[in-house]
């Protein structure tokens, strides 16, 4: 890209030079022609005048006239000869050889009187008709005009040279600066490829396109690093939350096998193993589901349904469970909250929230009026809002964001049964449906608010 920038700079400089050379060249030619035309026109005028005046004048009188004109200062050149070519008057030493064959005149060189020998000046001349026995050539010295033209040409040439040089230097400098910055990006990329994912491309602070690009690349790197860390965290967690129960499963099978009681012990051990395997399967399924949700793959099964009704139904499923724990489950749902979503996934999310709320409220030693779990659904400013509030231990401010992540079970809850995936599954379901999950203080207890976009009004 750097050399490309240099090439572009050089090309545009060249194009600029060519165009200005054309314009200046045209101007120069035009001026030159104009000056020459002017001289030739003047000559023709004088020739006509002399032709008129020469009528009736004898040769001697004409010679006097010519002598007068030739003596005047200026650029006028004259030569009067007789029919044989002998000079009678004028300031040209002899008939120019260059014009011998040209009856209408032309350009020639001549030595000016008083100049050093060998120096010839440029002139233009035409014949004037002054009768049959004499010949008159009138001309103009155009050396100065030529000199002027040469000066203009020189000026233009120097100008163009300087311009071209400046353009090339600017292009080179630009190319080199761009190149060196790209080299920085390259070097950073290579060291990242080498495994140092924490490296970032330094910004020049010029806030130009390259800085923009670097910023985008840095943003991309941040996201990748975040995902990688997430992945690492997940695999660490898998190692812990799947391997630990697997080990327990293995231990219980071993213990049963060693048990001297025999058949009864085997049966107990096998039953325990099946239970532990089932728990593992649950964890595994939840994990897979979250992974699939995060890849966003269930759009096909989205349907339109009344969210209030679903929340009510799912909460009702948990009502007897709450009652068994000495808790009151308050269900308040507005009718007619239409959403377009996967009904089973939303149901699972509400079930997880209700299950958590009951689980964490159950062990608390609260007065009767606080032995309540509230499940609500309502429409609020364009969103459907599901709110599940408990009177459990709650989650501290600093832990709330972490609690939504996969496998995170805050220390206090490690002893509770469950996969530790409940809330993160809710968060994944929310994200999939362009919704969000908030954890709030229920003072005391935890309030989880799940928002989902309302379905557009049906046609």
């Amino acid at each position: 890209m750097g050399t490309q920038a240099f090439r572009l700079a050089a090309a545009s400089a060249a194009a600029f030079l060519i165009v200005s050379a054309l314009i200046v060249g045209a101007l120069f030619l035009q001026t030159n022609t104009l000056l020459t035309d002017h001289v030739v026109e003047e000559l023709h005028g004088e020739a006509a005048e002399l032709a008129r005046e020469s009528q009736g004048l004898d040769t001697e009188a004409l010679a006097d006239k010519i002598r007068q004109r030739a003596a005047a200062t200026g650029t006028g050149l004259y030569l009067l000869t007789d029919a044989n070519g002998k000079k009678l008057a004028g300031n040209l030493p002899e008939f120019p050889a260059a014009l011998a064959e040209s009856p209408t005149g032309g350009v020639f060189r001549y030595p000016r009187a008083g100049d050093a020998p060998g120096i010839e000046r440029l002139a233009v001349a035409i014949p004037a008709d002054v009768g049959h026995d004499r010949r008159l050539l009138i001309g103009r010295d155009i050396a100065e005009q030529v000199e002027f033209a040469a000066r203009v040409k020189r000026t233009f040439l120097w100008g163009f040279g300087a311009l071209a040089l400046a353009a090339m230097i600017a292009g080179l400098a630009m190319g080199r600066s761009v190149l060196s910055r790209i080299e920085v990006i390259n070097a950073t990329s290579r060291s990242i490829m080498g495994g140092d994912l924490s490296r970032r491309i330094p910004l020049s602070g010029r806030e130009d396109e390259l800085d923009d690009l670097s910023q985008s690349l840095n943003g991309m790197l941040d996201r990748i690093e975040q995902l990688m860390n997430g992945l690492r965290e997940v695999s660490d967690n898998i190692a812990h939350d799947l391997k630990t129960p697997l080990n327990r499963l293995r231990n219980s099978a071993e213990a049963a096998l060693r048990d001297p009681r025999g058949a009864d012990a085997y049966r107990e051990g096998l039953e325990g193993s099946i239970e532990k395997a089932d728990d593992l399967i649950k964890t595994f399924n939840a994990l897979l589901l979250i992974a699939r949700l995060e890849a966003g793959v269930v759009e096909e099964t989205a349907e339109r349904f009344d969210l209030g009704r679903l929340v009510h139904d799912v909460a009702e499923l948990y009502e007897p469970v709450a009652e068994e724990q000495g808790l009151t489950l308050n269900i308040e749902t507005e009718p007619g909250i239409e959403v377009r979503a996967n009904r089973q996934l939303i149901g699972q999310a509400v079930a997880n929230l209700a299950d958590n709320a009951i689980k964490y409220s159950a062990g608390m030693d609260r007065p009767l009026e606080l032995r309540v779990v509230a499940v609500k659904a309502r429409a609020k400013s364009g969103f459907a809002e599901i709110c599940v509030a408990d009177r459990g231990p709650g989650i501290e401010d600093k832990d709330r964001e972490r609690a939504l992540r996969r496998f995170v079970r805050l220390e206090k809850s490690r002893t509770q049964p469950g996969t530790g995936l409940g809330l993160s599954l809710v968060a994944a379901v929310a994200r999939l449906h362009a919704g969000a999950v908030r954890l709030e203080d229920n003072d005391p207890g935890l309030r989880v608010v799940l928002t989902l976009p309302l379905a557009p009004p049906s046609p």
Partner: protein
Amino acid sequence: MRVLVIEDDRETAQFLQKSLKESGHSADLAGDGETGLAMAQSGTYDILVVDRMLPRLDGLTVIKTLRTEGNRTAVLILSALGDVDDRVKGLRAGGDDYLTKPYAYTELLARIEALARRAIPEEQETRYAVGDLVLDRLSHRVTRAGEAIQLQPREYRLLEYLMKNAGQVVTRTMLLENVWDYHFDPQTNVIDVHVSRLRSKIDKGFDKPLLHTVRGAGYMVRDGAV
């Protein structure tokens, strides 16, 4: 009951064959989709158990082919893919039920038995009776020994499903799917709580319990011990 198991994992297939035999059914095995399809086309089976991912011809194609040929044999799909989407795809292809691996054999057995019963053209029964427990589907009235029992709408549906499958094991997942129409994991055993509530209404105060817990499997409504 004749079952055709189309499953490419030999160990799983043989386990199913052995288990089904022990449960009083007969089972044929097919190791790939093509063989399975040919056997299903020629043989007479009550139930097909079809794995989704099979060599040569995948499970869904086998089912679709059979359905377009007019073969209406009940199909239970077995799959490692347990997503909501996968389930819907399986049922759309013509499957009657969908079970995700890994599964408990009791769950599989309960489901194929339920499918086999469904396959028998059901005369429109308006009344279920088990022992002295009677459920009238027209008036939605439930009586035991002539005495009316007050049930919540959900409890009524729960009992209705259990009585429709009287004498057969009904698993918790089957109840969740058929009574509540939920295809997700409710985390805790919510179903147990609902069943024990129902039990307290229909069995409490009677000598002979009708709603039994089948250990490691589920529940059964039956006149007599399990």
